[in-house]
């Protein structure tokens, strides 16, 4: 065992590539801080540039490599070591080619003695990519792996650690822990003239509050001859009843098949648009939604997770009439609903 580690470290130190067993498949290891070695690895894998590659490390190295909040640290300690790749903002201590375009880095701390010992001794992160070529299946034995390589590729390998057939474990599961990069709505972004507070003890009551608001506001708009779309910005924690509120609005307009649009970001029902900004993690994504095109008179737009609308609030304000709804848990059965008009 010690001999294997010594030999491997020797190659890594000299910028070489090693095929090495892991908790999942045979991996291709090189020193993650050595740019020449990383370039060689990318060339070997025939991997499109810009595609990120994760690294093996240990708990000692973790804080040097990525930025971790207290909350994240607890989660990480619970699930690692294990077959997971954790994505976090990089501190740029590894070769930049391994990071994603957004400057994040994938981290692996496996439950696998050989790798753990290697990292412990080497004290530097090493690449954790599978040794198969890009777009080819993962390989569990050295023989099948070497068979699909060209002569030139075989020459690029400096050391092969053959542990025979590895158990057919699935590749690691990737989990992205980076925080969203969107502007959060702040108090004062929109000024309201009136706030009403309601208490709801049931789904039906929440819906009827929503109905009341839409009816009086539609009237109000008509009376003031305001030719603007109506925009509901709805804030509140998970499970508080935001979708229920939107269903209430929809039902008063005769739309009965509203479901959560989280997965697709928004659903469209004639001139009624039901958004959920929950999945929006980057301000770039707003551009693809073409929201400006929907801001026409007579349209109604509802935004769940409206706090994430900071990026587009000026647009919404300039073209529409905003109603801001804040929903809060009073307890498991009751909700407080504040409507700002």
């Amino acid at each position, binding site marked *: 065992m010690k001999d294997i580690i010594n030999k491997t470290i020797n190659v890594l130190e000299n910028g070489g590539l090693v095929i090495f067993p892991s908790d999942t498949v045979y991996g291709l290891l090189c020193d993650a801080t050595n740019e020449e070695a990383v370039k060689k690895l990318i060339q070997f894998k025939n991997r*499109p*540039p*810009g*595609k*990120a590659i*994760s690294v093996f490390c240990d708990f000692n190295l973790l804080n040097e490599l990525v930025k971790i909040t207290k*909350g*994240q640290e*607890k*989660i990480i300690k*619970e*699930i690692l070591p*294990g*077959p*997971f*790749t954790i*994505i976090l903002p990089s501190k740029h201590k590894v070769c930049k080619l391994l990071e*994603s*375009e*957004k400057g*994040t880095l*994938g981290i692996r701390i496996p439950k696998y003695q050989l790798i753990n010992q290697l990292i412990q001794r080497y004290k530097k992160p090493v690449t954790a990519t599978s040794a198969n070529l890009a777009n080819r299946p993962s390989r569990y034995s050295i023989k099948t792996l070497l068979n699909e390589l060209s002569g030139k590729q075989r020459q690029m390998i400096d050391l092969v650690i053959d542990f025979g057939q590895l158990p057919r474990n699935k590749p690691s*599961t*990737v*989990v*992205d*822990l*980076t925080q969203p990069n969107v502007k959060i709505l702040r108090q004062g972004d929109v000024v309201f003239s009136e706030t009403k507070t309601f208490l709801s003890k049931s789904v039906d009551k929440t819906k009827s509050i929503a109905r009341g608001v839409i009816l009086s506001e539609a009237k109000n708009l008509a009376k003031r001859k305001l030719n603007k779309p109506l925009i509901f910005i709805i804030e509140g*924690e*998970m*499970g*508080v*009843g935001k*979708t*229920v509120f939107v269903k209430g609005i929809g039902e008063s307009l005769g739309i009965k*098949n509203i*479901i*959560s649009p*989280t*997965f*697709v*970001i*928004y*659903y*469209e*029902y004639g001139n009624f648009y039901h958004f959920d900004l929950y*999945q929006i*993690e*980057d301000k*770039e*994504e707003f551009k*693809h*939604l*073409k929201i400006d095109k929907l801001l026409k008179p007579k349209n109604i737009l509802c935004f769940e997770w409206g706090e994430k609308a900071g990026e587009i609030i000026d647009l919404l304000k300039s073209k529409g009439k905003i109603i801001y709804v804040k929903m809060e*848990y009073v307890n*498991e059965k009751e909700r407080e609903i504040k409507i700002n008009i």
Partner: protein
Amino acid sequence: MLILAIDTSCDETSVAITDGRKVLSNVIYSQVLLHKKWGGVVPSIAKRAHEERIDFVVEEALRKVGNKNFCSLQNIDAIAVTQGPGLAVALEVGIKKAKELAKKYNKKLISVNHLEGHLYSPFVQNSQSNPKIDFKFPYLGLIISGGHTEFVIFKNHLEYEVIGSTLDDAAGEALDKAAKLLGLGYPGGPMIERLAKEAGNKDFHNFPRPMLKSNDLNFSFSGLKTSFYYFLKNQPHFTLRVKELSSSFQEAVFDTLIKKTEKAIKQTKINRLVIGGGVIANMRLRKLFRDLIKKYQGEVLFPSYKYLTGDNAAMIGVVAGFKAKKGLFVKDIDELDRLPRWSL
């Protein structure tokens, strides 16, 4: 019949070439709008919208078939496209491209419901015609994904009756959101599956099974979400055990799915299931369905290849093949418009 199928229902641009039930090629370009599926594709390309990549994906799908003389746009018999349900701006791109190709190459156009695709996904074959299963109608169909949770009686080819669906969140969405509450980031479903497995897929907390008492076949996961939220809120942070919680939440969702399915089997007296959608990639859920169906001496069919559980154009092309057989082509190509909330 060679069909070029396009699906842009959500964040994935997918184009496939199919021949009957056989898939000759299927190209999926992920990460468009939600370009955070780390490790997927080249981010600089992924940043652009569907529009900028659709041509490339069409070409790739044709190229991957290999035989150029056999497979070019001229030799394709019809173009198929997902008309809905899905994200409007995304659907638009696929439909526009499909119309353009149909006109340019003078091909017939077939419109497909994305949910039909999921129902047919267990019957989709690879280029070697595997799996070799035959249709034995009627089936009780289930679509369980990040965007849908529906019960459908799959009566015959292209004949469906929806008998239950979610009133709020989809099952996959509930799992993703639980993962988020646990601080597990995105995407949460596969993470929950893996952590639950490490906890032995046991139920430690017995979270509520929503809608089991109701007599209908609808689902609602918002109550479960609330109860999970409250549970986490009332526990001191340091005592939370992520694996046990993942496992318990997953069991609550899956148990609901299984019990409702049992109810549906009893009501419809159909003991043959076809199940499609992203959540059925979960091996624990497959096992639970196999166990259930053993009890009713029926059969259960899942998609044979993992890519068929997610959004893909291959299943759209296969549905289109059956539509073509019945002469169900789009009559007025210019009139075809997206249907973001199209139901079966």
